[in-house]
């Protein structure tokens, strides 16, 4: 059985706002073909203020689909349409004290129903562009379609690269075979994970230090830009990163939000480091800000 939170159980056993809503003026019907779940969200919107005065749902789906629907109606009641549209699937999952990775799609379905219902109220046509694949990485809830898209978009060749770009496989590592299968499906073959020939002369031991190509200013800007590009990925999981200090090859960063104290902290730092090594063309070490105190 799934490890459902108390909140999920509560909303499943005693769902809020279930059943038809006769005065509804915005209705969204969506389904997830992946698991056959389907949801109808009904909104009663005040035409003057665009405030959602009431919200009801009917759901054909598993316990967490019903709980996610119930949570969604509770979250959006009293909000304006624009406010409600800002509700993310993560907000729904957070409201329920989390969902198992396999069940995150239930919260995605909730968000899609909301978009569809608002579009219906506004007389627009809503089309869904989100395709869902088989769940590959259970630690970070990453599916095959997302991995495939990322491999194509970035020309990824190795499992390590996939982990750096998507986080898939960065946890327990049990899904590495599945990631390799996706790589083979996209690239037609599996490239070796051997480290690339070291391009940076700095990496060659025994040689006299070579002048860095970048000025200090350029180098720090590059570090900042690289971190900036990584932030949306971390923010998606309610975390964040900021640059604290650059001391030669040691780069100190602060992980904040959900990243702080996360059991995956070292994997996250590893991923950031791989990105920085790639961007700077030199070997650097990324350390948590706590290490600065000991430095």
């Amino acid at each position, binding site marked *: 059985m799934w490890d459902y939170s108390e909140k999920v159980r509560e909303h499943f056993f005693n769902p809020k706002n279930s059943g038809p809503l006769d005065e509804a003026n915005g209705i969204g019907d*969506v389904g997830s073909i992946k698991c*056959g779940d389907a949801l*109808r969200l009904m909104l009663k919107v005040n035409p003057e203020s665009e405030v959602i005065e009431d919200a009801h749902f009917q759901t054909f789906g*598993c316990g967490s*689909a019903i709980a996610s629907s119930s949570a969604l109606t509770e979250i959006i009641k009293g909000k304006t349409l624009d406010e409600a549209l800002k509700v993310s699937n993560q907000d729904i999952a957070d409201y329920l004290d989390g969902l198992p990775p396999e069940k995150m799609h239930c919260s995605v379905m909730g968000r899609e129903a909301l978009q569809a219902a608002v579009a219906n109220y506004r007389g627009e046509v809503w089309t869904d562009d989100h395709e869902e694949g088989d769940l590959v990485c259970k630690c970070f809830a990453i599916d095959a379609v997302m991995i495939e898209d990322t491999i194509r978009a970035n020309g990824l060749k190795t499992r390590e690269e996939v982990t750096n770009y998507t986080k898939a496989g960065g946890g327990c590592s049990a899904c590495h075979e599945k990631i390799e299968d996706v790589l083979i499906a996209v690239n037609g073959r599996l490239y070796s994970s051997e480290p690339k020939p070291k391009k940076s002369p700095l990496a060659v031991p025994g040689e006299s230090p070579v002048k860095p190509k970048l000025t200090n200013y350029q180098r720090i800007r590059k570090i900042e830009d690289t971190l900036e590009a990584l932030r949306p990925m971390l923010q998606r999981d309610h975390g964040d990163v900021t640059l604290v200090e650059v001391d030669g090859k040691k780069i100190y960063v602060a992980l904040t939000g959900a990243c702080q104290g996360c059991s995956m902290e070292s994997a996250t730092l590893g991923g950031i480091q791989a990105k920085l090594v790639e961007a700077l063309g030199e070997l650097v070490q990324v350390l948590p800000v706590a290490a600065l105190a000991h430095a």
Partner: protein
Amino acid sequence: MKPIYMDNNATTACDPAVVEAMLPFFTEQFGNASSIHSFGAQVGKALKEARGKVQALLGAAHDSEIVFTSCGTESDATAILSALKAYPERRTVITTVVEHPAILTLCDYLEKEDYIVHRLRVDKKGRVDLDEYKSLLNDRVAIVSIMWANNETGTLFPVEEMAEMAHEKGILFHTDAVQAVGKVPIDLKNTKIDLLSLSGHKLHAPKGIGVLYVRRNTRFRPLLRGGHQERGRRAGTENSASIVGLGVACDLAAQHMDAENTVVKKLRDRLERGILAKVKNAFVNGDLHYRLPNTASIAFEYVEGEGILLLLNKEGIAASSGSACTSGSLEPSHVMRAMGIPYTAAHGTIRFSLSRYNTEEEVDRVIAAVPPIIAQLRKLSPYWSGEGPVTNLEQAFQPEYA
């Protein structure tokens, strides 16, 4: 109230007599059966007795045809991989679309290794087409693997006939019989079945013990090589306590075989009739005239299985869903899909699998508990309105699927 266990196709309770027989093998009888000294010799004797009991339940001609393994999955993998190794020029496997993942996932993997896998389709009652099967039998086939009984619907397959057909063409025949052993009479010596898998925990023995039956003179290649245990066909120190337990369980299964097909069957039929009389838009899946006596697979249309299970669990009733939503995958059951059961019914399929420990009083409690649960969930369902499915086309629920 005492909980009711009706998920015996998933696993069974160890019979108390099984546990009692096992206990000495954790304490004073700890010896290694291969040792010369008396500690080992007594264990060796116990293993021989247990082997004889398994042989008797399966109707095998020789006790040396019984190979103990760790589980049904190991037995299945050993059988198929052995055939492919023993007949390297034959690169085709024939099986069905409704096998257990122990077979199907292995076959998917074999395809990646460039083997050819034919998966026989099934009709809406879960039956294979023997003409299609016959047309696939040729000298490129290394092995046929067909389950004796389906775990979700209980539908039986004509494995004895199919084994004859394979035998005529000189093809090895394996059957995954983990659901059938102990529930239907089996007499292997009078069949052409070459290999058969069984799993202890499906018949009131503990988990972690399985058997692969290997007919004498079958070309065989072990999966695990090492010591001489199991005559070199499955290396690794014998799980002596569990083997002894399985022996007792096989004895008990033979004793209860008649009751399984009369008493348990009657309880199952009572359960089905009782539920269908009270819940509309529900039906039984599988081949009603040719199935296991203990299994009831009931589809409740327009609701989803996991919700039913959670509410049943609240009432102290343990069952499982045909929808794999509960087992880590989100796809509806591959068995229901293969049978062409519509999404809205496949997702609402619940499997009640009984055993000799269930009582009429328990069956009646389940019959009373199910209707209000279905009604409660249908109230939440967008496909349902008032007393029946939505029929008004204006209101009909046609979600945009992602």
